[in-house]
């Protein structure tokens, strides 16, 4: 399910996650807080979580969409 949580109490509004996200999932609101704007495009790459200096972001490896697989599992 991709990026699942931004802890706004911890977030320092540095903007790094917004700048770095390769999929443009996050956008800043009027107060420079990152907002999960385009969840469906999140690729669960963990970059935002890894680079957040405040440890405010949690990503899940599960994606929002069910994967299409080569055979039935």
């Amino acid at each position, binding site marked *: 399910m991709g990026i699942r949580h931004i802890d706004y109490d911890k977030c320092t509004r540095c903007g790094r996650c917004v*700048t*770095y*996200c*390769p*999929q*443009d999932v996050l*956008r800043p609101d009027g107060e420079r807080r990152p907002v999960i*704007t*385009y969840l*469906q*495009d999140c*690729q*669960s*790459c*963990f*970059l935002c979580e*890894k680079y957040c200096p405040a440890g405010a972001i949690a990503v*899940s*490896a*599960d*994606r929002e*969409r069910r*994967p*299409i*697989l*080569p*055979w*039935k*599992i």
Partner: protein
Amino acid sequence: MKTLQCDVAVVGGGPAGTFAAVKAAENGARVILLDKGYVGKSGCGTFGAGSFKAWLREEDSLDLWYGKAVEEGFFINDQDWLKKHFDTIGDRVKELEAWGVTFEKNEDGTYRRIEGQGSSDKRPIKTLMFHGPQFMEVMRRVCREKGVTIVDRVMVDALLHDRDNPRAIRGVVGFHGVSGEMHVVRARAVVLTAGAQAYKSHYADLHMETGDAHIMGLEAGAALANYEFNCHQLTHGNFATHGMNVSQGLGAKFVNALGEDFTAKYDPEYASHGNLWRISASMAMEVKFGRGPLYFDYSSYTPQDWELFERTLPLMYRSYEQAGYVDGNRRVIQGKLSWVSALIGNVGFGGGLFIDLDGRTTLEGLYAAGDASYGPTSGVEGFCAYAMPAASTTGAAVGEASAKYAATVGSFEIDEAEVESLTRKLTAPLRNPQGVDPSHVVIAVQEALFPYDVYILRTEEKMLAALKRIREIKRHDVPRLRALDAHGLRFALEARNMVLSAEVMLAAALHRKESRGSHLRLDYPEIDNENWLKWILVELRDDEPVLSTRDIPIERYPLRPEHKRELHASIAAARRLGEEI
């Protein structure tokens, strides 16, 4: 609209693009580097798993590395390029280190190297190790230091021709992914390094790679090659995973539904450490023979194993814990995890823009390198000369060649009418707010391409059915794609490029009537060196892919295949096991 000017415009800032930009700047060009993400935090290079298979003159046997690259490249490498790669990779490593990229070292200062995928006891291929994202962080800084102008968040999706020469490229058109502002860059030369087509696959960290370079090149008149060859990855069925090497090192095994460890049956030399497509083929065979589904089996893991696993792969461990596979005391709850193959298109090797030894495409002024190119060094997964090392050598070479070429171009004009028509074409989805959801198109493409009998164990019948579906999507859905804002426009154009790549891939795969490496056809199970030592080139005419072939000049090359024909090894192994295939 923003209009920019330079000598060399580089599209895509992964290892290939940053190397190209730096080398073009060093050769005196004014360089603009555009990326649809943020240079240094986008593209496969940012997520590289740390293995850099560089041949080192001081330590490695050239015969072994060259031989493996051609053997695993199945003789479709451009061996002139391969030689150039080996001649220059050492310099690239030295440069990377001088700039600050960290490679693991032993205490005595020598490189610490490990054997990874594709290495065997008989023929060990040792890889350098880098520290994931640090590589691309350094490359961004070096671009800046060399005076490259970086433009982040601009997706380029069309090329501009010279007004007076329809076979020459003189610029690019793109838009800013947040503001939507159109960007036109006039340039004496353009380098496409926007990476692979990865079909937004069920694998980690490659959803940015949607063949944009391939399709904009194709539409501008350039030729693609090797599009029938694909890279396969292996991953958990529910979520994308990595760290297979570490997992195996600690005792995880591939097993079929009967609990049998099956990989060695198909590939005695490498078993579960072979090229990814080989394991993928073995898995598909097991499924075909009724012994699926398949698992990666962690049942033997002790709490100590999990502890080490957690230290090396913390995110993976957390995913397993969240999924309930391991408990709080590091005991296995569920050891057998569903494991699948994933088609990841031409990441690391395979299809892309056809280039000559300078990196020039079939159009003047248009260059390509890395995964945007057709992988001349590696052919089919010639892992001794592919992926990040190949992106580095090809990128550096095209940077230099494009700058030298740009210096020969005098004043030129672009065609304002072309700028206008391309702008209208690019922004069409924005005028279609009630149109087709790009997600639908992505899923439809994946449904057509991802079944194992379309991309692993191929037949004409299945590929024709898939192609029919892709053409239906192309006809009905693509013209009506929708975008609600600039973000959505990127994803609409990416979906469109996926459809067009899928069409090229299937057309090329149907055309190649033999098996070769990852292109495994059950209806043509032999490698046919008599008729198929050829590259399949694809160009566009009236919106339709047109195929032709070009002979590989094998007689000139140092290494040539031994046999005229031979049964593909995966099929031969299955037949030896008594399977009817």
